[in-house]
């Protein structure tokens, strides 16, 4: 997602502008992204997206806490409503999030079919800041290729963020 780094560099000291349900890179355990099944796998990209993949192949995609903080107040999200039912490839743009200062594209972490979008974000884009790894999920997908070897687990992602 980080076309944003071109615009504003946020240092780690600037975390915590928002009251947050989760402080680390964990899913909100009470949100559908976790509760959809008993054993979701969570993976990350170095573009700061996360995906929770459930045993039946359903996935939820969103942006990480780090990305939400870096972006600042989300004012608008362009959801891929017209792409519901369509197949997307790894790296395809599936959404764009805007803040006052900048706009950032969100890329698909996996090959998948978009089956739903989080319409709550249309009226409440601030959910992307308040609960980016829970109720601020962006799209629901059916993962069509389960190869997630290119993705990072939570520890690797955390390391990656520290180095950034």
């Amino acid at each position, binding site marked *: 997602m980080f076309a944003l780094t071109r615009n504003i*560099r946020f240092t780690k000291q600037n975390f915590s502008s928002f009251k947050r349900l989760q402080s680390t890179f964990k899913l909100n355990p009470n949100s559908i992204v976790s509760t959809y099944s008993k054993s979701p796998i969570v993976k990350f990209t170095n573009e700061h997206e996360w995906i929770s993949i459930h045993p039946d192949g359903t996935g939820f995609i969103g942006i990480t806490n780090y990305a939400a903080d870096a972006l600042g107040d989300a004012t*608008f999200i362009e959801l891929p409503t017209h792409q519901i039912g369509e197949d997307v490839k790894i790296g395809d743009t599936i959404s764009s999030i805007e803040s006052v200062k900048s706009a950032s594209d969100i890329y698909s972490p996996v090959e998948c079919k978009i089956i739903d979008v989080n319409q709550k974000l249309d009226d409440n884009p601030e959910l992307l800041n308040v609960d980016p790894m829970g109720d601020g999920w962006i799209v629901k997908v059916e993962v069509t290729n389960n190869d997630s070897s290119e993705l990072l687990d939570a520890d690797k992602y955390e390391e990656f963020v520290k180095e950034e």
Partner: protein
Amino acid sequence: MLKLSSKLSSNTINHSQLLKNSINIVSKKSSYSTNDNSENLLKTPLYDIHVKLGATMVPFAGYSMPVLYKDQSHIQSHNWTRSNCGIFDVSHMLQHKISGPNTTNFLQKIVPTDLNSLKPFQNHLSVLLNNNGGIIDDTIITKHDDDSYYIVTNAGCREKDIKFIKNELKNFPNNDKIIHENFEGTLLAIQGPKSQEILSKFTNSNLNNLYFGNSRFIDLKGFSSSDKFHISRGGYTGEDGFEISIPNDQIGRDFFNALLEYDQIVKPIGLAARDSLRLEAGMCLYGHELNEDITPIEASLNWLVSKSRRDGEFANFNGSSKILNQINDNKSVKFKRVGIVSKGPSPRHGNKIFSFDDTSKEIGIVCSGSPSPSCGGNVAQVFLNKPFNKIGTKVKVEIRGKLRDAQVAKMPFYQPSYYKGE
């Protein structure tokens, strides 16, 4: 420059070319680059305080400047300034003193403002002009006395402006007694409806009779100094407010800290909100709305060309023939700076604008744009060809490869509330 002039004489305008120079300037000046090699960056006297406050520092015009402060989002910072009092470190801007016999005549060569009719301690927005009527920089000029002025110009144009003024001065007849100096120090903008309430706590000066566009020297209580400090009423947010110049660094820091103690009313505000506030107020940012290829008329700043300077002996400023021709012959102006509003994805700097009815026809370019915290939706300042510049005209803006609806709207988007008396 030449390219633009030849383009203007035909009917097609290459809009990207219009911003080409400005983008170069922006990349030096205001892009929040990832290169935070801070050793090469200058620091204002308030730098250590910003860091202590947990500000995110970014390179801006060669300085390390705060863009956001800890625990205040961009929108919170913006709204705070509109409803309370925000203080902005603008010490990176360049302060000038210019005085001596013939100074007014000299300045009137490089700006289109009638400085003779300014009273002492009145100020005026103006523009430094090149010989083609293009804008070298925008500036606030304060008259202190006949032939004595205090001038503030943009940080991003620092070297260019100094060189320009020096060169103009060298070529000006009877220049031998004109003294041009720059000075550094703390320059602080105090902005928002509660600005007077706060500043009054620090001075014996009665601010009730200091109106927008005026300045004076005031005492500051509690800093063990009998010095007087220059304040002007106005600013760059559309709110009531002041800009205070404090040449002594220690007093500058002490005053900044003292203001922050009123934390129920005062918050430090960074560059991010400064930009969204000025955009809503319809104010220009050099490198976005203004550059060396744009005349004040194209930038819809006709009011900066004083009536008394439009003919006769005082119509002698740089680029006057082109600028006055544009005023007198409306048709010679091919495009204007106007506002547009939209919903959805926001227009941003450099986005192209197309005709609503014929989407193959490019008719303009976005100078700056963003979601508007105070007005809702998106607002943008754009260059738009005539006749598409009329209020209410529907246009299409190309954002991320798609054409999006927008509409020409009246500026300012946010109605300023300047203090012009009870």
